[in-house]
């Protein structure tokens, strides 16, 4: 377990590096999985100020220092956000978690973190207390609490994969890491075999990763691995011979891929299960998101690049913690794509247009991106004709897949778009094979229209109707950024003659709030405009906070524009109710506890430049400085503890009910 920790912590190689954060503060809450009744008391709400990227890396000896699992008791304090079992399996380890949490102070959200920071700053580089450094926040869990309940969320598996693939990244000096990781993997699998419902999740996830856990690595393999790492290290140092390195990577990959041992265990795990709930397993398989591309895995990135339509140059100085996310040199993509305008024959013009609008940043907002994509697909389906000797179902699915991968290259898909794509593919798959092509096309087009209408337009109207009931005369409503639903709510409430004031909180670099403000002021609402820095100042007078969301995950975590978590936490601290307005089609079964493992990186230049101020040019041409890393995160995850209510098209629900909606109305029901 301890080795996980080290592999993760090593992933920062630049000491004393200056990192410019767009969201200067990353809140993270550690949430224990407890049933509802005891939630308010024992659930730890401890927004820890994590200084993302500011940590200095612990030196390699730290690995040995932190020693065996029992010696890392301080890290228990920072129970891994990633590896916490989902609530539904929580009951059996209730006592253990209670015991764990009882030692922690529940206290006020802000002050302790400030203290913590000052203490860490005084600590010299070499002697980090694991609980204070990244080590503490890295996904570590004492085996006792982790293994007992035997429930791995899919994120945990994701994380395992990440730590594994990290070994191939050039900058990781992970010498003998794999061995111990293996043992950990063994443990994990042993556990997963014991578990009942969750095994499949693990097995699926592991098998879908290209570099699975190696259970019994042969000597040769280990040797090859080590060599590759050495080569990678050398390459990182001198930047030499990438071809050579790649070759190495290939050589290494072959043995490591599809280890027999692993396959055997996974199949055993699967076969053990088979008697029970095969259909459930199938469902899970279908709903399982495809393995996320980890962009710190060099060989896979290379491979993806060869396939890519859009030529992308990766930004050199990426913040260590976010290496797994794609980040490209902005400004190089658009011209490259433009050049290829006429070469992209298979791409439908409508899809191309949407893609280039995503890329150029003309099209923002989850709903509109989703609608634009669906309408483009509709156009493409209208113009589609099945080539001879192919079936519509398969060929069209392949076509949609190629469109989707093109769009992903332009900009990573939002969760809402992923859901919409799933819906469309399900509809295509369900088409009866006997159906004539024209009929199939019209039925698909009407399906898309229906989706847009029912899941977005009507859903928005329902949300507006619900939310308006929560607005009373004399309210002061705060909103952050620019959410289309919130805007509709405010305008509708104004039309109903309610008397309220709006505080629009905004943040750099996009300043989307100004567009919202313009519309609200134009309609005659009385507004206050401020930036997120001042949110603690305006919060006392606010009576309700309305926020939009990019997605709500099944544990109630709200995934939204960066800064949302900050606003929600401040509101929580001031006991102001936080209402999230989100259509149900944006719900996702995934569980995510931090904003690290899945996020999107924006243009780093956007935060290094200040628009309208020519004199603030300290960072001009600094993008290539070795010791400067710019981080422009686009999303963050707000833990459900800070959310009073989620207003969705199924009504107003507490965040814990998202999982219920997903279960009851999810899958087929959610997608009509």
């Amino acid at each position, binding site marked *: 377990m301890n080795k996980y920790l080290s592999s993760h912590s090593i992933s920062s190689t630049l000491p004393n590096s200056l990192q410019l954060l767009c969201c200067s503060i990353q809140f993270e809450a550690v949430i224990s999985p407890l049933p509802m009744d005891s939630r308010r008391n024992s659930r730890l709400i401890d927004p820890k100020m994590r200084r993302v990227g500011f940590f200095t890396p612990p030196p390699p000896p730290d690995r040995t220092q932190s020693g065996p699992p029992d010696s890392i008791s301080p890290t228990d304090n920072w129970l891994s956000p990633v590896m916490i079992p989902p609530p539904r399996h929580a009951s059996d380890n209730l006592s253990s978690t209670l015991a764990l949490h009882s030692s922690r102070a529940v206290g006020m959200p802000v002050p302790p973190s400030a203290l913590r920071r000052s203490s860490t700053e005084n600590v010299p580089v070499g002697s980090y207390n694991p609980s204070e450094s990244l080590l503490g926040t890295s996904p570590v869990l004492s085996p006792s609490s982790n293994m007992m309940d035997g429930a791995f969320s899919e994120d945990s598996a994701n994380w395992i994969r990440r730590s594994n693939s990290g070994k191939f990244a050039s900058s990781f000096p992970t010498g003998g890491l794999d061995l111990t990781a293996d043992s950990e993997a063994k443990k994990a699998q042993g556990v997963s075999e014991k578990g009942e419902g969750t095994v499949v999740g693990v097995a699926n996830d592991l098998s879908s990763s290209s570099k699975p856990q190696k259970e019994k690595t042969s000597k040769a393999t280990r040797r090859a691995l080590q060599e590759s790492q050495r080569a990678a290290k050398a390459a990182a140092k001198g930047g030499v011979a990438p071809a050579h390195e790649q070759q190495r990577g290939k050589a290494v990959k072959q043995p490591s891929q599809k280890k027999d041992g692993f396959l055997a265990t996974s199949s055993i795990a699967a076969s053990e299960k088979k008697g029970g709930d095969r259909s459930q397993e199938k469902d899970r398989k279908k709903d399982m998101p495809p393995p996320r591309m980890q962009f710190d895995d060099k060989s896979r990135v290379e491979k993806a690049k060869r396939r890519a339509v859009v030529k992308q140059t990766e930004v050199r100085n990426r913040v260590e913690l976010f290496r797994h996310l794609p980040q490209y040199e902005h400004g190089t993509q658009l011209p490259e794509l433009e050049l290829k*305008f006429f070469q992209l024959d298979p791409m439908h013009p409508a899809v191309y247009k949407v893609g280039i609008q995503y890329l150029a940043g003309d*099209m923002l907002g989850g709903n509109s991106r989703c609608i634009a994509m669906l309408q483009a697909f509709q156009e493409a389906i209208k113009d589609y004709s099945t080539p001879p000797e192919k079936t519509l179902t398969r060929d069209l699915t392949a076509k949609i897949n190629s469109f989707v991968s093109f769009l992903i290259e332009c900009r990573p898909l939002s969760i809402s778009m992923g859901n919409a794509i799933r819906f469309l593919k399900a509809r295509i798959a369900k088409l009866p094979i006997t159906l004539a092509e024209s009929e199939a096309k019209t039925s698909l087009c009407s399906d898309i229209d229906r989706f847009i209408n029912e899941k977005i*337009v009507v859903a928005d109207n329902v949300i507006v109707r619900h939310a308006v009931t929560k607005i009373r005369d004399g309210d002061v409503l705060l909103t952050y950024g620019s959410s289309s639903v919130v805007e509709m709510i405010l305008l509708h409430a104004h039309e109903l003659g309610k008397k309220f004031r709006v505080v629009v909180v905004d943040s750099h670099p996009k300043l989307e709030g100004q567009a919202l403000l313009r519309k609200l002021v134009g*309609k005659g609402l009385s507004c206050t405009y401020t930036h997120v820095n001042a949110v603690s100042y305006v919060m006392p007078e606010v009576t309700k906070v309305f926020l939009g969301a990019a997605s709500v995950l099944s544990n109630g975590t709200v995934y939204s524009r960066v800064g949302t978590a900050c606003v929600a936490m401040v509101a929580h601290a001031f006991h102001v109710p936080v209402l999230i307005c989100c259509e149900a089609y944006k719900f996702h079964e995934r569980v995510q506890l931090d904003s690290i493992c899945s996020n999107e990186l924006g243009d780093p230049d956007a935060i290094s430049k200040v628009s309208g101020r020519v004199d603030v040019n300290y960072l001009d041409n600094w993008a290539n400085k070795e010791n400067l890393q710019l981080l422009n995160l686009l999303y963050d995850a707000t833990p459900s503890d800070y959310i009073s209510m989620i207003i969705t098209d199924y009504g107003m629900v507490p965040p814990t009910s998202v999982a219920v909606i997903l279960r009851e109305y999810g899958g087929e029901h959610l997608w009509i």
Partner: protein
Amino acid sequence: MDFQVVVLAGGTSKKLVPLVSKEVPKALLPVANRPVLSYVLELLEQSNLKDLIVVVEGEDAALRVGGWISGAYVDRLHVEVAAVPEDVGTAGALRAIARHLTANDILVVSGDLVCDVPPGAVAATHRRHDAVVTAMLCSAPVSGLSDSSSSGGKDKAKKPRRCNIIGLDPAKQFLLYIATAAEVEKDIRVQKSILRAVGQMEIHADLMDAHLYAFKRSALQAVLDQKETFQSLKQDVLPYLVRSQLRSELLLNGAQTEENGNDKVALQNNKVMPSQLLANASTPSFHELFASGADGSAPVPRKTHKCCAYIASKSKYCARLNSIQAFSDINRDVTGEASHLSGYSFSAQNNIIDPSAVLGSKTTVGPQCMLGECSQMGDKCSVKRSVIGRHCRIGSNVKVVNSVVMNHVTIGDGCSIQGSVICSNVQLQERVVLRDCQVLCVCVYAHSAFVVSHAWFWVSCQVGASYVVTAGSECKGESLARKEKIQSQ
């Protein structure tokens, strides 16, 4: 990608008269020993645009151009050559072939464009903004720019004729104003409504309209139908579209009107439509803001359309062969700084000498030169930064500097040619000195010790020995007497 390409190859341009003729229409004028049209065709071919419509003015010219294309691009491109009457202008030419245009968007390229800016970039910009017209702008050639760059924005109106005035929005995406050189003498009139909507306008005089446009077909055809007097795309159609962008009279495609209808219904029913959601989220351009009224309260959205600009980066080469000066400039650039355009592979000495060319002893061909097939050069010649065509015969002791010599030219011993353009089939006799003669055309029988500088063009002149012809002379079919000095200007 639902684009159709129209190449306007022109006919026998008046501006280039001595260079072009019935035999050599503008499109076939050799640039680095290749017809100028081939540069455009190959640019398009590189972008995978293989179905082209080439419009040529005049039947004869069309026949010649068509003949050349079918010979040179027989299995590479699918080209339809359409002949239109002469003097209909670019707009007229499009009007004439309007029924062949079916795609949603039309890419209109001038046949005299020599550039390496991918047309896909223009098309992509066009699509991205859903514009009615997108024009490619490139930085104006240095000659037109040198003195105007120092003076401030509005003075540029008084600058030499070749600079255009182009107004752009601060993000350099939209065209707000465009005036061609001819109109610039007058004051600039910018519409208040546009200025108010945009807030800020940049006026550029250092940009040149490259005559590569992407048009929305429906809009283009509407304009061409409504305004029958419009002759030129650049001087009439484009300024009209730019002028009227905030009070569009175009009925764009059906979808747009339907959408507007939807919006109205939506407003009445107080419901949300997808189109509205879409409009809400994308960062609105000033068009949309204007359309929805100052505070979003306009009862009926005003009709607008977008006119976009694609500005080619400075590193790209872009020039139009529309004057004699441009002709020699382009010839020089194509063998020099923009040598990748020529399509030839340069030798180690940075020049191209056809293997069939014969060089005499002690003859040097410097860098950035080109020597066509089967040309012969005598002893002790020197060629610098010049293009020499096919089957030329050049005697001994000849200096050719900064010049273009076309095909089948005979140059006698001891000639010196600097900065001149010498057309096909010219014969120069011994010891002729030409300096900065723009054009020498058809047969010139010049005798020894003959100095010509700054002459414009010559048609069939016969000149005796020891003449001095200087600045700005125009000589046509004259037989010059002995010891006469022609001087004008």
